[in-house]
C-alpha cells in the first residue's frame, strides 16, 4: 500500500494559537451561559471560571506562553473597553456638579490611602505598599461595563459607577507611574531615567490619545453621521492606537482612556454619533475574562489570606467614605451611596496588566507586588461582578424583563 502520509498531518496535529483562541472563546461563552442559566450569576463570572478551568491551575490547556502571546488580545479588549468608558466620561457634568467631582476624586484618594495604610500595618515596605495601593485603587473597567451592559442598566448609579471607574483608573495609572522614580532610584538607575521615564509614559500616552482623537474627529467629520461607517472608524482607530501604544511602549490603557475622554469632550461640532460596540465588544470581553481567569493564581491565597482580606475590606471602606459623605450633596437618592460603593468593588484584568508591566521593568519588585495584589484580584474577580450586579439590581436600574426570546435565569 502506498504511503499516504504526505497529505496527512503529523500525529497528533499541531494546533496553533488560532485553534486555542477559538476554543477559549467557546469555553468562555459556554461558561458564561452556564453561570447565568444555572445560578443566575453574572456571565462575567462564568467567563472567568472557564478561564480558571482551562488555565495552568485547572486542566492546563493554556500555559503561560499563551498568556504572553495573547497579550495583544488583552490589550485590544482593554483598549476597546477603556475607550468606551472614556467616551462616557462627561467633563461638563463634573463642571456642573462639583460635589460629584469631589466625590470621584475622594473615592480614588480614599481607596489609595486606605490600602496603603492597611499594608503598612502588615509591615510591607512603603514603596511596595504604595504600588499595591495604586493598583488596588482602580475598579475593573471591564467588569463594570460588561455587567452594566448585560443587565441593560441605566440610571444614576450606573452612570456614576462608570464615571468613578474612569477616574480611579486614571488615578491608579498616574499614581503607579509616579512611583517609578523611587523604584528607579532604589535600583540605582540614573536620575535621568528616574525622571524621564514616568514623564515619557504619561506624556506619551496622553499625546497619543490626543492625536488619536484629532484623527477620529477629522475623519468622522468627513464621513458624516453614518452609524456603520463611524463604527468601523472607531474600531479601526482603537486597534491602531493600541498598536501604536504597544510599539511606543506607553501604557495602552492610559492612551486609550485619554483617547476616549478627549473624543467625547473635544467634539465641539458634535460629529460623533453615540457609541455602540455591541457584539464586537462582547467578543473581546469574553477573551479578556477567560484570559484573566486563566492567569489567576489561587495557590498563594492561603498564605496571604489575612492580608488579602484586609486589602479587600479597607479598599471597599476607602472607596465608600467619600461617596457616603458626598453622595446626597451630589444628588444621589437615599441609599444610593452604599450601592454605588458596592458596585465599584470589582478588580480584574487591568490590575493583572499593571502588575505584569511593573514586573517587566523590575522582576523582583513585580513578584512581590504580585504576591500582595493578585490574591485580592483572584478574590474580587469572583465576588466583584456579584457585588456590581447586586448593586445595580438593588438600585432598580436594570431592565426588569429579559430581551425577547431570551431565557430567564434559572429556567
Amino acid at each position, binding site marked *: 500500500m502506498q504511503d499516504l502520509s504526505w497529505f496527512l498531518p503529523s500525529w497528533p496535529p499541531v494546533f496553533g494559537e488560532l485553534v486555542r483562541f477559538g476554543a477559549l472563546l467557546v469555553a468562555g461563552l459556554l461558561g458564561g451561559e452556564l453561570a447565568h442559566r444555572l445560578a443566575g450569576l453574572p456571565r462575567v463570572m462564568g467567563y472567568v471560571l472557564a478561564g480558571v478551568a482551562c488555565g495552568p491551575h485547572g486542566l492546563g490547556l493554556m500555559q503561560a506562553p499563551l498568556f504572553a502571546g495573547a497579550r495583544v488580545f488583552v490589550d485590544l479588549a482593554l483598549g476597546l473597553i477603556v475607550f468606551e468608558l472614556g467616551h462616557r466620561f462627561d467633563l461638563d457634568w463634573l463642571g456642573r456638579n462639583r460635589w460629584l467631582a469631589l466625590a470621584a476624586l475622594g473615592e480614588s484618594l480614599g481607596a489609595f490611602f486606605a490600602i496603603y495604610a492597611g499594608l503598612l500595618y502588615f509591615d510591607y515596605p512603603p514603596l511596595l505598599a504604595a504600588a499595591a495601593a495604586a493598583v488596588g485603587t482602580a475598579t475593573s473597567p471591564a467588569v463594570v461595563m460588561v455587567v452594566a451592559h448585560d443587565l441593560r442598566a441605566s440610571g*444614576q448609579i450606573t452612570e456614576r459607577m462608570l464615571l468613578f471607574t474612569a477616574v480611579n483608573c486614571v488615578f491608579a495609572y498616574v499614581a503607579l507611574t509616579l512611583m517609578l522614580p523611587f523604584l528607579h532610584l532604589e535600583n540605582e538607575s540614573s536620575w535621568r531615567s528616574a525622571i524621564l521615564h514616568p514623564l515619557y509614559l504619561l506624556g506619551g500616552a496622553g499625546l497619543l490619545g490626543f492625536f488619536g482623537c484629532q484623527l477620529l474627529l477629522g475623519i468622522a467629520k468627513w464621513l458624516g453621521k453614518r452609524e456603520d461607517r463611524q463604527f468601523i472608524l472607531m474600531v479601526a482607530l482603537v486597534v491602531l492606537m493600541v498598536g501604536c501604544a504597544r510599539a511606543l511602549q506607553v501604557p495602552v490603557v492610559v492612551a486609550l482612556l485619554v483617547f476616549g475622554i478627549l473624543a467625547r469632550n473635544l467634539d465641539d461640532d458634535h460629529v460623533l454619533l453615540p457609541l455602540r460596540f455591541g457584539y464586537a465588544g462582547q467578543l473581546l470581553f469574553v477573551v479578556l475574562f477567560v484570559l484573566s481567569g486563566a492567569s489567576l493564581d489561587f495557590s498563594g491565597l492561603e498564605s496571604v489570606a489575612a492580608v488579602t482580606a484586609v486589602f479587600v475590606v479597607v479598599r471597599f471602606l476607602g472607596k465608600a467614605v467619600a461617596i457616603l459623605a458626598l453622595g446626597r450633596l451630589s444628588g444621589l437618592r437615599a441609599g444610593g451611596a452604599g450601592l454605588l460603593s458596592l458596585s465599584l468593588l470589582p478588580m480584574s484584568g487591568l490590575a493583572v496588566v499593571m502588575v505584569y508591566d511593573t514586573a517587566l521593568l523590575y522582576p523582583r519588585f513585580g513578584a512581590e507586588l504580585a504576591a500582595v495584589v493578585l490574591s485580592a484580584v483572584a478574590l474580587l474577580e469572583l465576588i466583584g461582578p456579584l457585588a456590581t450586579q447586586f448593586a445595580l439590581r438593588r438600585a*432598580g436600574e436594570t431592565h426588569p424583563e429579559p430581551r425577547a426570546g431570551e431565557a430567564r435565569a434559572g429556567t
Partner: protein
Amino acid sequence: MAGMDFSASQSLSVGIEIELQLVRAHDRDLAHEAGDLIERLAKRKVPGEVKPEVTLSMIELNSSIHTTFAGALAELEAQRAVVSEAAGMLNLGLCGGGAHPFHDWAERRVYPADRFKSITKRYGFLAKQFTVFGEHVHLGCANGDEAVYLIHMLTRYMPHFIALSASSPFSQGEDTSFQSSRLTAVSAFPLSGHMPFVPDWAAFLEYFETMRGYGIVEGMKDFYWDIRPKPEYGTIEIRVCDTPLTVRRAALLAGYAQALAAWLLEERTRTPSLSVYQVNAFNRFEACRFGSLGQLVDPFARRKRSIGDDILETAAAIMPQAARLGCVDAVRELSDGVRRGYSDSGWLRERLAATGSLPDVVREASDLWARPSPAS
C-alpha cells in the same frame, strides 16, 4: 355622586400641565431617572408642582391657577429654571416635543406606583407606547353646563391646537411624515376619542354613571378624550397639544385657548352641533398629518379651508377678548408663526437636515428647552 360634583371655579382662569422628556447626556436616549429627579426636587422650593408620569422617562410640570397667560408663563419659566438646574446635577436633559424621536418603547420602565402598574397590567404594550408627551390646558368654568357647552364648541377648533403645538414628527427613529404623530398613540386606547354629544352636565352625569355601572370606568381619569371635563377642579382640559419645544409656546397656547373660550362664551352665535363630531375625525387627521397646511371642514359654514387660514381668521375674531384678558401678544405671536409657516415639527426637521442625526436633534431640542424664555 362622589367626586363628580362640578366645583365652580373662576371662569376663564387657566392652568397648564406639561409632560417633559428626560434624556441621558451620553446618547440622548430617554433616561429612567424620573424618580431621582423628583426626589431631588422634593428638597427645593419649586413653583407649581412636579409630578411623576407613567414611565420613568417623563415628568410633568403643573402650573398653579392663573388669570393671565403672562402669569402662567412667569411661573412656568421659574419652574423650568429650577427643574433644569436639578436635572443638570444628574446629567439629565429636559426636552419638549410630543415624542422622543428614536427611543425604543420596549426599553421603557414603568414608574413604581400602583396606578401606573395597573395601567400597564391592563393595557400591555400600549402603556409603554404611550410614552408620548403632551400639554394639557385647563380652563376654569363657572359650572358644569358651561363646561359641557365649551367642550362642544371648542371641538371644532381642536385642529388649531394640534397644528399650533405639533412637535412629534419622528417616532422610533423614523420620520412619520406627520406633524404630530403623538395623537395616534392616544387613539389606540379604547376610551380615547371625545365626550358624547350630551346637552348639559346632568346628562353627562347620567352617561358617566352608566359607564361606571358597567365597570368600564372608575373616574374621569379613565377617559382619554381630546377635551374632558375635570369636575373636581371645575375645569375643562384640552389634551390634544403636543408639548411644545419651549415653555413660552406652551404658555402662548394657553393664552389662545383662553381668548377663544372667552369669545365662544360671549358671542354664542352658534349652538353645539352633532355635525362637528361627524367631521371631527377627518379634521383631526388633517391637523396631525399636515399641521396648519391641512384642511378643515367647518360644518357651521359648510365649507373646507386650510387650518392655517382658519387660525388666522379666528385670531382676528377673538382679538377683543384677547385684549381684555391680556393675551393679545399670545394670539399675535401664534398667528405670526402661522403666516411664516413656523411649527415646532418644522424646526425639528430642519435641525435633522442640518445636523444629520436624531441624537443631535434631541441635543438641540434640550438646549433650546434649557435656555430661558423671553418674558412677554
